[in-house]
């Protein structure tokens, strides 16, 4: 009978199994280690949150921060559900969200961490790099479907939008579309980065993304004659400028407060600028 061989195999496997199952249990022993700060929310704010978390953790070795994206909607929903302490958002919290929060016993406290502009980008091969707000609105709501209708080449417009959890989407909707609905056949992407990549790869595309995500693979169109730049965002001339927010449950305390203070400090704001945003201190909106 084969029992001797299998018995040996079983013994080895049993020992191996015991070892690996015990590993996580062994690492359970550090009582202080459960102080994780979670940050969830806007993909626009994500680079700032991430680099901020890294530098902060380098400075404060005891700190432990977990960063996620998902969209502004995800961040605020998680704050309400209690699954995150810091929610980042590229739009202001909505009235319904505040109501839901209050109903759940959460009191959203707002901090502005940076200023950002929503750039409207087209593919580099597209000659149309001067757009007006009405044109943008017509394109996004489906009234205009071909570039030639507004004076460009004869090419189908590929409309790139963001998914519904995006704060950039909400801000764009409010600022450029006046609350009208985006056409249903617009390509829905998950983050600023995907917008950047898709517009770069698609000749007829138009998309909106955070100023910090603009790359030289796409061409930024001027909106109502104003180019999107740090200066125009700071001065408020650029029509699609908006603040970037952090929401916490009540006024931040403890480690969370220390982290937010860090972000708002000179060094933190330098990180903000490095990521392509405008410092919160310099805004005049």
């Amino acid at each position, binding site marked *: 009978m084969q029992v001797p061989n299998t018995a040996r195999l079983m013994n080895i496997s049993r020992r191996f199994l015991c070892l690996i199952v015990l*590993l996580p249990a062994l690492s359970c022993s550090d009582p202080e280690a459960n102080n994780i700060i979670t940050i969830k929310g806007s993909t626009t704010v994500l680079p700032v949150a991430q680099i901020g978390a890294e530098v902060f953790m380098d400075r404060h070795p005891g700190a432990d921060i977990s960063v996620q994206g998902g969209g502004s909607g995800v961040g605020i929903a998680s704050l309400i559900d209690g699954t995150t302490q810091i929610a980042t958002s590229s739009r202001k919290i909505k009235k319904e969200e505040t109501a839901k929060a209050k109903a759940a016993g959460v009191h959203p406290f707002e901090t502005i961490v940076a200023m950002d502009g929503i750039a409207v980008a087209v593919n580099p091969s597209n000659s149309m790099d001067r757009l007006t707000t009405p044109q943008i609105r017509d394109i996004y709501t489906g009234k205009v479907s071909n570039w030639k209708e507004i004076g460009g080449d004869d090419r189908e417009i590929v409309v790139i939008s963001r998914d519904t959890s995006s704060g950039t989407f909400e801000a764009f909707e409010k600022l450029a579309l006046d609350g009208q609905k985006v056409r249903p056949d617009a390509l829905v992407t998950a983050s600023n980065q995907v917008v950047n990549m898709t517009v770069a790869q698609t000749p007829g595309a138009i998309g909106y993304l955070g100023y910090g995500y603009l790359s030289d693979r796409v061409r930024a169109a001027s909106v109502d004659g104003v180019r999107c730049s740090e200066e125009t965002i700071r001065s408020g001339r650029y029509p699609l400028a908006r603040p970037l927010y952090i929401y916490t449950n009540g006024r931040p305390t403890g480690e969370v407060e220390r982290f937010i203070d860090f972000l708002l400090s000179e060094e933190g704001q330098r990180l903000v600028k490095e990521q392509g945003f405008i410092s919160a201190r310099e805004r005049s909106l």
Partner: protein
Amino acid sequence: MTRQTLRENGPFAAGRKKALRGSDVSQALGFLLLGACIVFALFFLGTILYFILVRGAPAISWEFLTSVPRRAMTQGGVAPAIVGTFYLTVGAISFSLPLGLACAIYLCEYSPKTVLVNIIRLSINNLAGIPSIVFGLFGFAVFVKVFGFGVSILSGSLTLGIMALPGIISASQEAILAVPQSYKEASLALGATHWQTIARVVLPSAFPGILTGVILNIGRVAGETAPILFTAVTFYTRGYPDSVFSEVMALPYHIYALMTEGTRPEIQTQIAYGCSLILLSLVLAISAVAIILRQRQRRIYGS
């Protein structure tokens, strides 16, 4: 009469003497088509493996495999994701193996032929067909929320474990049924009780088969993303999980997150390729081990 003789002299021979028949042409075309199908499948597989290998290999280094991500995911490595995948997989198997094995033992050894048992079989089959995202929904609603485990290794492992359950049950069933009836009869004849027979004769003999099944399911579980999306994972955390209640990074989710939320695509696509290579190698190595084990087993037991 051989087939040859029949063809040359049999009832249809006359019609067959013509030079090129329609049926020959259609046969040739048919075989060509079949060959093309398999060539296409092999080509696609080859393309995937080629790209992942060629573009992922440059990203792999000792540092990549062992250090944490730095500088907004553009430097350092993906070690926390590897560790996270490991913990999730181990957790899933430690949950589903005892349960699955117990179920298989019941179905093979104890179950009467009643309607209830058929219902159990049906549920196992149906559980196997449920989309992975539905498991994620269930895990989120129940483990994360109702049980209050939060987004954690625990929730993720339990969700993955339920997903792996049908696979483990059927692999264990197969292994147990393959144990020759004579072994059991001999044991019972020698005076052992039913349980003693199961524990000391059936299970040890079925062990290699069960092990193979477990290994195959480990491979499947390690690569799953949807069940852990809302139950276990996070995009970035500096270190390694402290307890079963922490969030983790995981390889499959990391690839997704890098591609959709990453902030520096040029570098991060590279990293995503590297992660894909690691994940693919892991899963394929695990499957290879299982297949080899199964071949050896078949040789020994001659099934």
